[in-house]
């Protein structure tokens, strides 16, 4: 075990090279609906229990199922209304279980990125070969069902190994070269994209995905009210928009159809989307487009600046 994952260098949030998003935008705004499948009878994992009660653990299972049966279309209609294409964090098995959802997302040119196979199968305890196989399965499944070359990864249920990002990048290269496996949503250390060190040396970025704005964290962990959540989304945006004048920032709302589209919560979410997309100089986009834009335009400049800043007061 390591003291630090070693994926990124310290990069102070002052005097960074100025990022300007397309058309002079100050904030790159993206919404990442997690479209997940949780199993009724998942196998046990020695490091994490899939359900808190003996199977069938109905409260957890039925709530997730509700998200696919009821919530998905509500969220889809809402994003469409505000001109937002979702960037889907996808349990790849959902392509097999619920192809109707995949079709609808495809029709709207939404992005699909990998979130493992099921959200009840964790990376913990896997060998490197097993994790590689699981990641490969997910990228191949996404390609087979959507024709998309998967750009990004968010580990299933945020369960990681020391090699997760390396493996994702390598499998992407093996299948599609530089067109797949080039960004991660697994790190929460910044409000701007950052270059990631990988053992392969591949050009790879971390794209801010914001656990703080994640509806499940807000509702299940912080247990805030829907109206408070709507306010926090607006507050988060206001500050990032202000700071985006200096150098372009990223705002992400990660959502779950089983949380944010509940009848008592969707209004607050809609008000925030209306507010954010009502501003000028906001690039409403997808995770993959942000990552690509950063890699093409700012990745090299960032590397130089990181090196310079870390030398300023002497080497560690």
């Amino acid at each position, binding site marked *: 075990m390591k003291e630090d994952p070693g994926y990124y260098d310290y990069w102070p949030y002052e005097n960074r090279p100025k990022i300007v998003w397309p058309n002079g935008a100050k904030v790159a705004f993206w919404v990442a609906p997690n479209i997940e499948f949780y199993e009724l009878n998942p196998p046990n994992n020695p490091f994490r229990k899939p359900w808190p009660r003996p199977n069938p653990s109905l409260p957890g299972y039925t709530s997730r199922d509700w998200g696919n*049966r009821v919530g998905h279309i509500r969220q889809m209609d809402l994003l469409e209304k505000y001109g937002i294409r979702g960037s889907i964090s996808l349990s790849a098995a959902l392509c097999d279980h619920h192809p109707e959802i995949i079709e609808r997302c495809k029709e709207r040119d939404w992005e699909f990125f990998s979130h493992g196979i099921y959200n009840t199968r964790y990376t913990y305890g896997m060998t490197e070969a097993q994790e590689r196989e699981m990641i490969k399965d997910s990228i191949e499944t996404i390609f087979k069902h959507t024709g998309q070359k998967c750009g990004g990864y968010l580990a299933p249920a945020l369960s990681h190994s020391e090699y997760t990002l390396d493996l994702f990048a390598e499998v992407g290269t093996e299948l599609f070269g530089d067109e797949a496996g080039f960004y991660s949503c697994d790190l929460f250390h910044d409000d701007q994209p950052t270059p990631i060190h990988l053992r392969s040396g591949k050009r790879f970025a971390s794209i801010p995905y914001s656990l703080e704005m994640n509806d499940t964290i807000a509702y299940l962990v912080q247990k805030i009210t829907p109206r408070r959540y709507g306010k926090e989304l607006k507050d988060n945006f206001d500050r990032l928009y202000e700071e985006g004048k200096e150098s372009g920032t990223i705002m992400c709302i990660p959502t779950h159809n089983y949380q944010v589209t509940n009848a008592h919560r969707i209004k607050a979410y809609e008000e925030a989307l209306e507010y954010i997309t009502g501003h000028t100089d906001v690039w409403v986009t997808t995770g993959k487009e942000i990552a690509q834009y950063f890699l093409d335009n700012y990745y090299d400049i960032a590397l130089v600046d990181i090196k310079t800043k870390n030398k300023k007061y002497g080497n560690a």
Partner: protein
Amino acid sequence: MGTLSDDYLNYPERSYGMDHERYKWTMLQNRKEVQWPKGKKIALWINVGLQFFPLNQKGVPFKVPGGMTKPYPDLRHFSLRDYGNRVGIFRLLNAFDHYNITPTFAMNTRLAERLPYLTGKIKERGNEIMCHGYDMDKLHFGGQNEQEETDLVKRSLDKLRALTGQDIAGWISPAKNESENTPDILAAHGISYFCDWVNDDMPYDFKTKNGTLTAMPLSTELEDRFIILNNYHSAEDWADQVDDAFEFLLKESELLGGRILSLNIHPWVLGQPHRIQYLERILDRLSSHHEVWSSSASEIEKAWKMQQ
């Protein structure tokens, strides 16, 4: 680490539809549109949990939410729950009558046995009673012995039917928890609808070995206990969330047909003096709205079924 067998990457249920055979995979937006009686858009289902939390809770296989949490004897939680059946319920009943609301009562059979006055009162009102299991500590759970569970269901239903004189067609398991067999056992004992699977906003058909049950959508997320005691929101916040839900469902019903606003509430939560006014606020608004049909769970189920 590397401690998992390769079986961990086998997915035997990875195919079209659900990962079990209990119901069909469909999306709400693709269903047949439903109309409630008199052309109303929103069926209002006020469901009142009348519960008994035993002091000598065993907590097998888990402690029920709302149950005892302290070392025995946990007088604090026992008496706070009991408050609802002595005091809070009468505030609720007055509010229902004042606003002309039709509630449905989900009753633990043990409570009906222990409190003949309350049972008689509910019976006299003529409101529908459904069975909420034997008591809040007699859980239905995965791995439970089938005969033991069958006996528990039979005892709960037989006794509640005898005490109330009602058929008892509806069921909610304590903590909405089930074993693999619960739906089969319920269907074999005269239950026609149940409320444990909170995976939809409308009723749907649920297969059992003994015929089809209707799964009725009783929201947990909008429940008073969940919002006030699990999420620590105020009663006023609960009422705001009900307002927002109502407005959204009303809008959705204009496009996709009738919807159900289900409010699962408890006299030990909303029946407190500082909270009851927020229930009244909600009932005032809903009862005076021209699109609201206040009805019992089984009436809503029937109206839905007739249109399938």
